[in-house]
Structures are given as structure tokens and as C-alpha cells.
């Protein structure tokens, strides 16, 4: 698919996110992130804890300010100082799904309140009747029943609670969803339910997802494109299929090798590659994102790029 013809919904332009960690000390959590997310796709951001993936998600939500660069949503800047009206517009159109549904719902509020909270804040209902109808519809869309409204979060299982979290986001009729490890805290069987639900809602409502995860096996199933982030730097971006077929950056390879496979014979002989940054070019040349094949970017120096070119040519020959 040619990426030029597609509509960009969110554009991250050379974004840095920095935290002050004490007197004159700074921690750069995200360094020069630069990519576009197209309308209607699921874009996955994959990395380990501490890689900056959540920080970047929170920068989009305007929770962490960018210290450099800007973020555009539908062509308008949403980072830095914007008008109150625009801020509300962002909050309404970009919603977030959190990792731990138990921690992200108010345990002293009923499901009805949890789900309607956004409606209250934005007065998105004509009257009580309209509000209740909207809550019912949101609950139904995630596979819960209208009678669940009067219950409290603790009365639900983990999977149901996560669905309440999704309903809470969906009721705002958002265009873009930042899903921060939405299934990491769930059991295997419930993971599958939530992933299916997210795929269904995406198809029905033409949503765009930024899916933040640490697990490549899940991402393969749900993502259209994947960005791999390591210590604040995006090291590789490619279409999902391509990334799995032709992983270029050694860190991507190590992530792939670490996914445990559910097969005792295969798993017991499998090599787990530990990422060793010393294999990279140590000349001190500044690294940049280079396009090795259309839509497939690797963060590297010119010397490394030559190495990746050779690797790619060899893999293409082998894999056809």
C-alpha cells in the first residue's frame, strides 16, 4: 500500500519528552520521535518498560508536555499551548484505554457513572433519558448488558472491567484511541475477547488505534504497522508483516526471539538473542531514520545502513 495516498490523522514531528530529575539533571524519555499514523489503522508501539512508549502515548494525550517538536491531530497542532476550546476538542476525540481496569475505574461509583463521566463533562446529552440511552448503547457495544449499569466495578471480572473501560472511551465517539497495554493485566482467554472487541469496534466505527504493548505475539495479530522503541528512540518502523519477515535492527531481532512459543519441542531448542548494542557502528556518526524499503525505516548510521542493505538483500533472496 502506498502511504502517500492515505490520510494522516496524527502526526508526531521530531518530538522529545524530557523530565527534570533533579537539579539541572534531565532524563530524555523520548528522543526525536517522528512518524505519522494513518486514519483507520492500528499502529503499534512496542518496547520494554522504560523505553518511553507510555510517555509518548501520554504526550499525545497532553498529559506529558513535549520539550521539542510538535504533535498534530487532523492537521492542527495539539501539543504545547492551545486554546481551551481546542484542548476540549482533543480530549473528546482522543480517548485512552488503560492497562489495569481495576485501577482506572472509580471503585465507589456505579458503572453508569463511570461510563457517563465523559458525557457529564462535555454535556453531550439532551436529557436524562438521552444520557441513559447512550450509556446502554455503549455497554451493549462492548458486550455488556444495560442492567449492569447499577453495579460497581468490583462486581465484575477483569475482562468485564476492561470492557467497561472501553465503553467509557467509546461513549465519547472518539476518532483516535491510545490503548496503553490494554490486555497485559488480563488472563489469556480474556485477552482474546478484548482483542476481538477492539478489532470489531475499529471496523464498525472507523477508529484509529495507537496500541502500546511489550509483547510482539499480540501485536502481530492486531497491528497494521509497528514501531519498535528502545530507550526512548524508535529503532524500526514497518508494516506488521514486513517487520516479522525482515527484522533489520538487532533490537527488533532480540524482541522477536524472546517471544515464548507454545510448543515444548520448538521452545526448548530456541535461541534467545540478547541485544548487544556493541554490535552497532561505534564511529559516533549521528543516527537517523533511513528508509530501507518503501515504508520500512531503520534508525542507523550510513555504515549500518549498508550492512542492513546487504542483510535485506540476502533475506529477500532466501524468503522470496
Amino acid at each position, binding site marked *: 500500500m502506498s502511504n502517500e495516498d492515505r490520510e494522516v490523522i496524527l502526526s508526531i514531528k521530531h518530538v522529545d519528552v524530557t523530565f527534570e530529575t533533579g537539579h539541572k539533571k534531565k532524563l530524555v524519555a523520548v528522543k526525536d520521535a517522528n512518524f505519522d499514523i494513518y486514519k483507520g489503522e492500528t499502529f503499534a508501539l512496542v518496547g520494554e518498560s522504560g523505553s518511553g512508549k507510555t510517555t509518548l502515548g501520554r504526550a499525545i494525550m497532553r498529559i506529558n508536555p513535549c520539550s521539542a517538536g510538535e504533535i498534530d491531530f487532523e492537521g492542527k497542532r495539539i501539543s504545547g499551548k492551545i486554546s481551551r476550546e481546542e484542548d476540549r476538542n482533543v480530549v473528546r476525540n482522543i480517548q485512552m484505554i488503560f492497562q489495569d481496569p481495576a485501577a482506572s475505574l472509580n471503585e465507589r461509583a456505579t458503572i453508569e457513572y463511570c461510563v457517563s463521566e465523559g458525557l457529564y463533562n462535555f454535556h453531550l446529552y439532551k436529557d436524562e433519558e438521552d444520557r441513559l440511552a447512550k450509556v446502554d448503547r455503549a455497554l451493549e457495544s462492548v458486550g455488556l448488558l444495560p442492567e449492569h449499569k447499577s453495579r460497581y466495578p468490583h462486581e465484575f471480572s477483569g475482562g468485564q472491567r476492561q470492557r467497561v473501560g472501553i465503553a467509557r472511551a467509546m461513549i465519547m465517539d472518539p476518532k483516535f484511541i491510545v490503548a496503553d497495554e490494554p490486555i497485559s493485566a488480563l488472563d*489469556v482467554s480474556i485477552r482474546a475477547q478484548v482483542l476481538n472487541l477492539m478489532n470489531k469496534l475499529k471496523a464498525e466505527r472507523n477508529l484509529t488505534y495507537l496500541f502500546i504493548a511489550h509483547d510482539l505475539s499480540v501485536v502481530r495479530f492486531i497491528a497494521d504497522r509497528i514501531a519498535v522503541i528502545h530507550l526512548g528512540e524508535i529503532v524500526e518502523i514497518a508494516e506488521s508483516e514486513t517487520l*516479522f519477515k525482515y527484522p533489520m535492527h538487532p533490537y527488533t531481532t532480540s524482541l522477536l526471539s524472546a517471544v515464548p512459543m*507454545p510448543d515444548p519441542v*520448538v521452545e526448548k531448542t530456541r535461541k534467545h538473542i540478547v541485544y548487544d548494542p556493541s554490535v552497532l557502528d561505534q564511529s559516533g556518526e549521528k543516527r537517523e531514520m533511513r528508509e530501507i524499503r518503501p515504508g520500512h525505516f531503520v534508525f542507523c548510521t550510513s555504515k549500518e545502513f549498508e550492512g542492513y542493505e546487504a542483510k535485506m538483500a540476502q533475506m529477500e533472496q532466501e524468503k522470496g
Partner: protein
Amino acid sequence: MDENRNVIISAKDVEVKFRVRDNYLTAIRNVSLDLYEGETFAIVGESGSGKSVFTKTFTGMLESNGMISNGSVMFHGIDLTKLKTDKDWEGIRGAKISTIFQDPMTSLNPLRTIGYQITEVIEKHQKISKAEAKKQAIDIMERVGIPNAADRFDEYPFQYSGGMRQRIVIAIALSCHPEILICDEPTTALDVTIQAQIIALIRDLQKELGFTTLYITHDLGVVANVADRVGVMYGGQIIEYGTVEEIFFDPKHPYTWALLSSLPQLGVKGQDLYYITGTPPSLYNKIKGDAFAPRNERALKIDFEQEPPFFKVSDTHYAKTWLLDPRAPKLEKPEAIRNLHEKIKGMTDKGGAFHVE
């Protein structure tokens, strides 16, 4: 399988109840399990299946409202269920049977140095001098892969990364040379790359020191990697057990089928992933028949009426399902997990999605 291997710990008909607000919840329903010396046994199940509660009976660490209402756990001729006070447990818990928990941050004391926390255990269980304890502690820190162990001896947990902290927890657990190491979701809170390292570390240490490992996990990928034998738990019972190959390639219980089918690794893009409908049974009520029947689309009539016994599949493989009764209809396992080995091999061989050079 070696038939005359020694059983190191033997649980028989264990039943555990919890008192919750004037009500009794039966968390474990008559579970029996023999562990052989030197093996790695993995218990898999969803949250609430009772896998953690069951293994807590091995170390007397049930919450105060819990009690073992039936059965025995025999270890070196002692029935562990009869031990009451901390004094009774001295010399067993932490010394012969150690546990590693999920979250290394909560199992370490944030206000004490790493060195103090390791030597504390060594001094308590072995009567040796401080200097000797420190020497042993640094030695075990090196063994679990802490670089510059001597320098890092006086650091605090917050100065360690998550993976390093879990290594320290392992060091503490192994500092008294236990015979059994219980690993309760040891890698769930860690990143995948760190997970692979910790799993390899536990395996290497096991080879070197020869302890028996009991893994508790919900991740079948981890099970495939570590286990010799596997037990699948559901609704407070082990419903199927066998060698790891038998459980993955020839599972018999519909719940094991369902668990394997819902793995995201088996998902096909553009199609829905398989998932288990409904919720696990409430443990407050008496469970009639097969606990999984209400969620099993292909349950038999008898599954709702009578609890199935264990049927023998092979000398090492048993499953608690009526499907193995000679009178039952022959049901084949779901399409998704047929030829599992070929499918996974396709993914990891050259050209597959998970192949790495």
C-alpha cells in the same frame, strides 16, 4: 519417564477453604500431586483457578482466613498440613522449600540494602559468622548474574532494575540451598527479553544445584520452555496432567483445548481469536459435575450431573473429563490446535514470522 524416581513432596486430597464474611469459599477441591526429585512441574490456570493457593499449602503461607480442611502434604515424612506455628515451619519454609513471587519490588524491603537482605536469610538458617555470610551472599549474587557483586552489595533495591531485583529474589530464595523452589509467576511483571534471561537463569541453577522446581504461571509459552510435566488447574482442581509434550500435543480435557486455542500466537490476522465464553465458576457454591461444563459449547449431558474421575491416557497422562469414558462420543480437539507442532514450527523455521537468524 523414569519410573523409580523419588517422590519429594506428595499432596493428597488437599481441600482449602476460606472464610469470607460468614461464608465459606472452597478454593481447592481435593487436589493430589506428586513431585519427583529434580523435575520441573508447571501448574497453569487462569487467575482464580487456585494455583497460588494450592502451592501456598506447601509453605504454610495461606492467608489467616484460610485453612486446609482436608488432605495431607507429605514432605520427608512430615505432614505439612499439621504444622501450625512459625516455629514448626522453621527449617522448612525458606530453608528446604523456598518461594519466588511475582513482583520483585514488593518482595524486597525498600529500606534495607540488598546485602543485608541476603545475609539475613543466610545467618538465620545457617549458624555462621557475619563475614562468612557476606562471602556466601556475594558468591550467590555472582551466581545469579549480578555484575560487580561486591560493589553492589551495599546498594538498595531502588538502585536495581526490575530484572536485577528478580535475580536478587532468586539469590535469597536459593541462599539456603532449598530442595524445592516454588516460582509463583516469576516473570509476569518483567519484560519479555528479561523474562527469557530469568527463565534461563533458573534452569541453569537447577541443573547446577539439583533442586525441584514448581512453576506457577498462566503463560503457556513459558510452560513450554521450562516444564517437564504440566498440571492444568480449573475451578480449584487439577483437571489434566501429563508430560509437557502430552499436554501440548495431545491434550484431552476441553478446558486445556480452550486454553491452548486462545493463545494469541495462533491468531490469524483478520479473523477473530478463539476465546472462552462465560466466567469461571463461583467457588462459594458447591460445584456439580464438571466445573468447566457451563462454558464448554460441546459439554455432554453427564458433565452437568456428575463429576468426572481421572481417566488414564498413558502412564504419565491423566485427564478428568467424561470424554475419555468409553461410552462418550468421540470429539476431536479444535481445529486451531491440531498439528500444533507443525504450525509453530512453521512460524519459527526459516521464513516464519518468529524466525530469527
